């Protein structure tokens, strides 16, 4: 400052020395109040008249005087403001002289009512535009359901009579505008009586030209008081929708559409689709449009304490994979299917109450033709199995979902959840299996024809209550859940097995008859009641302790009646029929100590958990007891984790926990299940729960500025009392399975990823590698087989985004798998999986786009002579139409090389197989889309877009 002063002095002296009409002027004046008393220390500003830009500011001295020295010679807006005074504003036009005297400026008191009521009490900003005053109406509280009329009654400066006639600032208001537009008709009361108060953002009072002058364009100088109601942005009602229809070669068709309507509290949406191109569920975007604000919900977890370790509960039967909630799909389904679905969703959201409901129906008719080749290893020998099957599956599901969340007050919250599904499923299955010797001679055939009808009823529901105490950090939560799974099945099974003598091959079924022709009626009913409690107590700013308790009671009833259809009287087959009931009671009590400070989060805890498994097994309801199970297990499980959030998006984490899982009741039934005569399973009532020790450590960093990212982790799992399915294969090639416990199975691996730009924003690369090593133990014909698996994968990605109109994403991976068997080292094998994929987008002129997806997969297994190479190419050209860019026409060519054969291969302890499923192959499709919200006209620059 001191250095500047001489400079300024010099500057001023120079200007004074200059001629009369100096380019710099001084502006001065005196500020006084209504009583003409001087106002000291009052802020005075100079603004640009054009846009109110601040030029400079000063403050009056103790005598109320102010002076701006040496400001540019031009027009200014002089502005003076002081607490509880109306801001004064006047235009200063420089005259000949170098000192402009604004004279004595008298500040007017802000209408006391306005300042006290609007600014002070309602905390609402007011805006003064000449003689117009505007309020922020949101700050004036009126009871819910009030009309604009009720709101206006509250606003200072407004007077409303009993009929609702409006006077503003003493004058009658004849016109009410809504968002600047005339509301229906001339009666201003139409708007004020009918619009809800909560829809209003701002209320503006202004002087409008008379209708006469508007019509003629001739200014008649008459002014009428008018009110404008500005609607809240979020209250503006909206609607959007999207429709897509397509036809293609091979009679391929698809159609889908959705429509949404919403306002600030309500959302209503409807969606429907139908196709024969294997799209069975909603895409991620369609799902979000359908469920809106209720797409994702937290606070739904009713199991408090350490995650996992609860009693498992399955929904639906083993064959079906239908979700409980609205089905989503990621990629096309297998086989060939016709699909229809539709649903409605309604959400109601306010700050304190959230309600969501939806109904969804879907049905699918699927045709599956599957060819499977496998090689099965038996002690000292092997055989081939060629299986060709066709099945027709029909599924239909009705889903209902309800969710209610209420913030009772700032300390109490309640969440209620209900999900239900009612499903029908029927299957028509026929297959022909050929068993071949290593010399490829057929020695056995099996022909099967099964028809299956099942209805499924599923419920998953919960209630969660959370309470926060006045003491900061102390909280309590309680939950209760009810889950139900009911399956009613009617199956008809027919299979015929024939043996053919082959010289030198003696694995025959001999004189035994394995043929089946039976009716299987099965009912499975499981229900689960659960409850959890949680209490968190802060010990200090950095430490807190939690305690939790979980309880569950799971009851299952299985009633299976099998009838022999070979005989006329259809007698019940007692050896296959079963009736059993079982109950699993589960209790867990645990605690954890947590430390959270400066990015370091440590949790140490332990829980004691107890299972009580009880089961009773009968041939039929009224038959004598066949056997029973009554076992209790107790385990103490530790749980610990360290998460360290370092600066700059770097994280370090280490976890160790122990999981204990109870044996499945199915595995504990004390008798044989010979429903498949070639594959007989028996239960083991002495099974112990399986204990798994898991350790996990990792590091991650992500730098959004340099676009460099690193992820690395290592994991280790060790099993104690692992439940494995030991096999005994007899001379007839009948396999007997028995579950037993074994310790020593383990699995460990790593993952590493490094992503970096080669040329920032234009070319980036990503290198990753992961490997895992596993040791699985199994007894085959009472001999311990140690199966060691090694798996190595490397992956390389290149993202090329050089210009706005072009992007190319390349991915290449190479994987090597090794399997080694201790009892039969000749089975040792090595697989190679290779993949190369490329995704390209090009924007051509006139909003025409070209995209292509290429995917090459190679499978190799030298020992079995597999060498499969599958290239799949999809291409599309589309054009966005119209000024508003709301329409799109698209031509898509799927699987240009006609190579999509649904191939998969696998290897397990004593089996190598390759499966091929007839599925959607090459077709050309023409689609038209209309999107009310517009079609995207950008080229993706990110692999995941």
């Amino acid at each position, binding site marked *: 400052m001191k250095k500047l002063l001489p400079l300024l002095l010099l500057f001023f002296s120079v200007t004074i020395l200059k001629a009369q009409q100096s380019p710099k002027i001084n502006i001065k004046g005196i500020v006084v109040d209504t009583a003409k008393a001087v106002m000291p220390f009052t802020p005075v500003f100079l603004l640009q008249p054009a846009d109110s830009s601040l030029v400079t500011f000063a*403050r009056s001295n103790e005598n109320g005087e102010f002076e701006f020295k040496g400001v540019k010679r031009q027009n200014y807006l002089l502005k003076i403001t002081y607490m509880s005074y109306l801001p004064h504003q006047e235009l200063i036009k420089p005259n000949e002289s170098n000192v402009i005297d604004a004279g004595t400026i008298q500040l007017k008191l802000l209408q006391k009512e306005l300042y006290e009521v609007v600014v002070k009490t309602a905390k609402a900003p007011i805006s003064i535009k000449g003689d117009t005053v505007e309020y922020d109406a949101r700050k004036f509280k009126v009871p819910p359901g009030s009309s604009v009329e009720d709101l206006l009654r509250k606003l200072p400066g407004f007077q409303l009579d009993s009929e609702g006639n409006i006077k503003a600032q003493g004058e009658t208001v004849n016109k009410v505008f809504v968002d600047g537009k005339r509301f229906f008709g001339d009666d201003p009361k139409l708007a004020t009586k009918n619009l809800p108060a909560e829809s209003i953002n701002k209320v503006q009072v202004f002087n409008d030209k008379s209708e006469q002058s508007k019509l003629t364009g001739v200014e008649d100088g008459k002014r009428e008081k008018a009110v404008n109601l500005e609607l809240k942005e979020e209250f503006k009602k909206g609607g959007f929708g999207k429709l897509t229809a397509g036809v293609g070669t091979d009679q391929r068709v698809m159609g889908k559409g959705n429509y949404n309507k919403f306002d600030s509290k309500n959302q209503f949406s409807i969606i429907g689709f139908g196709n024969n191109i294997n799209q069975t569920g909603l895409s991620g975007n369609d799902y979000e449009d359908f469920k809106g604000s209720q797409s994702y919900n937290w606070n739904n977890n009713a199991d408090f304490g350490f995650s996992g370790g609860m009693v498992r509960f399955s929904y639906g039967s083993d064959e079906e994979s239908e979700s409980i909630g609205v089905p989503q799909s990621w990629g096309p389904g297998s086989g060939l299917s016709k699909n229809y679905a539709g649903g409605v969703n309604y959400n109601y959201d306010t700050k304190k109450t959230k309600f969501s409901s939806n109904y969804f129906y879907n049905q699918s008719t699927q045709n599956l033709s599957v060819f499977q080749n496998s090689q099965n290893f038996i002690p000292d020998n092997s055989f081939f199995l060629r299986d060709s099957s066709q099945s027709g599956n029909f599924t239909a599901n009705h889903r209902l979902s309800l969710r209610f969340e209420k913030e009772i007050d700032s300390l109490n919250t309640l969440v209620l959840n209900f999900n239900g599904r009612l499903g029908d499923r029927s299957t028509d299955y026929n297959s022909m299996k050929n068993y071949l010797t290593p010399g490829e001679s057929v020695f056995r055939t099996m022909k099967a024809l099964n028809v299956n009808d099942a209805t499924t009823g599923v419920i998953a529901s919960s209630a969660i209550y959370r309470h926060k105490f006045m003491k900061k950090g102390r909280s309590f939560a309680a939950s209760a859940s009810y889950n139900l799974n009911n399956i009613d099945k009617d199956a008809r099974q027919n299979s015929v097995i024939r043996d053919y003598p082959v010289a030198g091959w003696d694995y025959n079924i001999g004189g035994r008859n394995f043929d089946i022709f039976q009716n299987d009626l099965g009912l499975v009913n499981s229900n689960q009641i659960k409850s959890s409690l949680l209490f968190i107590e802060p010990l200090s700013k950095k430490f807190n302790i939690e305690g939790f308790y979980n309880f569950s009671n799971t009851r299952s009833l299985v009633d299976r009646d099998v009838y022999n259809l070979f005989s006329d009287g259809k007698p019940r087959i007692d050896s296959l029929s079963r009736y059993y009931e079982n109950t699993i009671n589960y209790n867990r009590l645990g605690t954890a100590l947590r430390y959270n400070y400066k990015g370091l989060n440590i949790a140490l805890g332990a829980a004691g958990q107890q299972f009580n498994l009880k089961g009773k097994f009968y041939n039929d309801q009224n038959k004598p007891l066949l056997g029973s199970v009554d076992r209790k297990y107790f385990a103490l499980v530790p749980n610990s984790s360290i998460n360290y959030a370092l600066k700059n998006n770097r994280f370090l984490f280490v976890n160790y926990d122990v999981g204990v899982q109870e044996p499945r009741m199915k595995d504990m039934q004390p008798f044989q299940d010979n429903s498949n005569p070639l594959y007989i399973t028996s239960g083991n009532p002495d099974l112990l729960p399986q204990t798994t020790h898991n350790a996990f450590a990792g590091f991650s960093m992500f730098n959004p500025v340099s676009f460099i990212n690193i992820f690395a982790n290592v994991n280790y799992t060790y099993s104690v009392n692992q439940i494995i399915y030991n096999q005994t294969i007899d001379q007839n090639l009948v396999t007997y399975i028995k579950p037993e416990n074994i310790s020593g199975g383990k699995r460990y691996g790593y993952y590493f990823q490094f992503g970096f730009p080669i040329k920032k924003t234009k070319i980036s690369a990503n290198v990753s590698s992961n490997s895992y090593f596993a040791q699985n133990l199994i007894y085959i014909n009472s001999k311990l087989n140690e199966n060691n698996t090694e798996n190595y994968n490397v992956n390389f990605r290149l993202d090329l985004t050089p210009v706005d109109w072009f992007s190319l994403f390349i991915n290449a991976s190479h994987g090597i798998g090794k399997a080694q068997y201790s009892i039969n080292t000749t089975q040792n094998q090595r697989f190679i999986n290779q993949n190369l994929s490329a995704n390209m987008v090009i924007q051509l002129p006139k909003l025409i786009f070209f995209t292509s997806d290429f995917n090459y997969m190679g499978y190799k297994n030298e020992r079995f002579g597999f060498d499969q190479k599958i290239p799949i190419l999809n291409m599309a050209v589309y054009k966005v139409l119209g000024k508003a860019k709301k329409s799109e026409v698209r031509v898509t060519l799927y699987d240009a090389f006609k190579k999509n054969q649904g191939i998969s291969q696998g290897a397990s302890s004593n089996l190598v197989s390759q499966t091929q499923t007839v599925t959607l192959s090459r077709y050309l499709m023409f689609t038209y889309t209309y999107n009310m919200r517009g079609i995207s006209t950008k080229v993706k620059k990110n692999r995941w877009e």
Partner: protein
Amino acid sequence: MKKYFLIVLSLLFLNVTKSNAQEVFGTVDYDYTSDWVKIYNRATYLTKEEKEREAMTSRNWTPNAEKMKLFFDGTGSYYTYESQDAGSPGGYSWQKADYFITRDFTTNMLTEIHNVQGRTFTVVDSIRAPKWKVLNELKDIGGYMCMKATTYDDVKKQNVTAWFCADIPVSIGPEQYTGLPGLILEISVDDDAVLITAKRIDLKVKPEIPKLSAKKLKGKKSKMADFNNFITQHLKDSAYKHEFAWGLRY
């Protein structure tokens, strides 16, 4: 550089006239609230459909507030996080990046420390104010009558609204905002995408203005223009890659 309006002169006037008045000092606690839906909706590379979908699916999310603190007296000011430790009791704790904004009115210099994803900028430069427009709107914040002023941030491409109290004659505010004829008690960036509001204003106790430690001030010093160029480039790169410009203080 040109986009900023140098107000050395006006500050001089302020100081000259203010010498008549008593010294102004105090501590202000601000709540810094980010509305992620609004912030995300500004992304230029998103289509209308994507923005509306995002707004619809996350309309029930409640933004959470960060606690900030401003200390000032006649000689300078200091602004940073209220505490290094964030998070509610028992909640997950994160670490804050370095962020210190200081002003020295005696030399008209600013010293700021910004940590953007591993790069620390120690900015030392003269104080420059954005070009404010003062509007005719009044509102009350914490018992103080405030006037509205607006500006456009050409670096971050944001519309900024400030509510300043002309009766607290000190030309500072939260974050980097400065240059109004009174203390800024509220800042709204892009229609409340970020809202910084004074929650507690204490003008009675003269605070000890914290000083930046020598350790923190070690290393290369940058000019404000260097830091702004870095931000401009990062915003441009992120938009090109269709990525949100993570790592920046909005």
